[in-house]
């Protein structure tokens, strides 16, 4: 085997080849690979974030639903209370009105009764006078005995 100038040629070729590779091959390929790696990492991170957001949104939706349900229950309870109160008030009013009506009716009955009693008294007095006249078989002067009659009426 003989070592000769070919060795130097090979060394130069090798050095140039390494230099070219370092300058023109390595950086673009590494850059592309790094970019792709970054893109994949970003995509994964984004997916993770999306999942997280979805979870948050779901939790929020559940919260909203629950609070809405609570609100609705509150409104229902209020409405029931209000309705009860209204019914109670109406009942009270009706009761009062009824009492008033009864009182009024009572007063009217009282009035009618006293009026009827007056009427009856008068009729009885007349009847008594007529009866007394018949009994005495003579005309009694109503005017002469008016005072007597009035006393009588009052006593009835």
């Amino acid at each position, binding site marked *: *085997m*003989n*070592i*000769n*100038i*070919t*060795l*130097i*040629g*090979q*060394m130069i*070729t*090798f*050095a140039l*080849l*390494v230099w*070219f*590779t*370092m300058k*023109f*091959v*390595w*950086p*673009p*390929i*590494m*850059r*592309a*690979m790094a*970019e*792709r790696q970054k*893109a994949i990492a970003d995509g994964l991170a984004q997916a993770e974030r999306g999942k997280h957001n979805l979870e948050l949104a779901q939790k929020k939706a559940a919260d909203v639903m629950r609070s809405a349900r609570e609100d609705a229950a509150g409104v229902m309870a209020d409405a029931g209370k209000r309705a009860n109160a209204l019914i109670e008030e109406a009942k009270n009013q009706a009761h009062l009105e009824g009492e008033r009506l009864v009182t009024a009716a009572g007063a009217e009955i009282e009035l009618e009764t006293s009026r009827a009693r007056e009427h009856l008294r008068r009729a009885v007095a007349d009847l008594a006078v007529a009866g007394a006249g018949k009994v005495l078989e003579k005309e009694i002067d109503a005017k002469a005995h008016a005072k007597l009659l009035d006393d009588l009426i009052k006593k009835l």
Partner: protein
Amino acid sequence: MIAAMVPGAGNPSEYIVHHLTNLAVGQGFWTFHLDTLFFSVVLGLTFFFLFRRVAVRATAGVPGGLQNFVEIMVEFADRQVKDTFHGKSELIAPLALTIFCWVFLWNLMDLVPVDLLPLVSSWFGVPYLRVVPSTDLNATFGLSLTVLLLIVFYSLKVKGPVGYAKEFLTHPFGPYLFPANLLLNIVEMIAKPLSLSLRLFGNLYAGEMIFILIALLPWWIQPALSLPWAIFHILVITLQAFIFMMLTIVYLSMAHEESH
């Protein structure tokens, strides 16, 4: 026998010698092995332009088939470097990639039938042709000496001339045995490029020699021998390229480390 069609084929030893002779011009040290230079440059450019093509079009989106392949190679080299080499260097990973791909392509030439390219070139008046650059010591030493220069360069850069000299004199036995240290370190330094290049050269030279010997046998027995050998050789050529790359990374990472 195919050998009969090939120039230089008289008797077996002539055939073998013919196959082991480089196409050379010049005298003595100033001899150029044109075939080694030609094939290593062509293979180097093949590697470079293939990867450059992908690098230019490299997209961060979904990669195509060729880009996938190139990215696998790049990532493979990058991972090997990151696993072994803990410093920060722009050079080492591309260097490792270049070594692996280039040496692999050199070795791959060993799987081309031994007589094919010499026969074709003989039609154009080329008398000798060795197609596997890694069976030429000039090629393997070209790689390993460049690696040695890088080892020295990085040792000086990281440790400084004084630190490097100190390591040479005091490691591993301490300052009082500095002659032994010096001797040991010089031997170690020489052993690195020597083992790198001779390992690659030896494996591929032997492999090529076996192919040549198989080619001397009667044609009907050749496939039964050359096929298993070629299949086994796929492993060898990949492994040798990988070993060369790995050891280069290891040596350079050792050069970067402060004294042990």
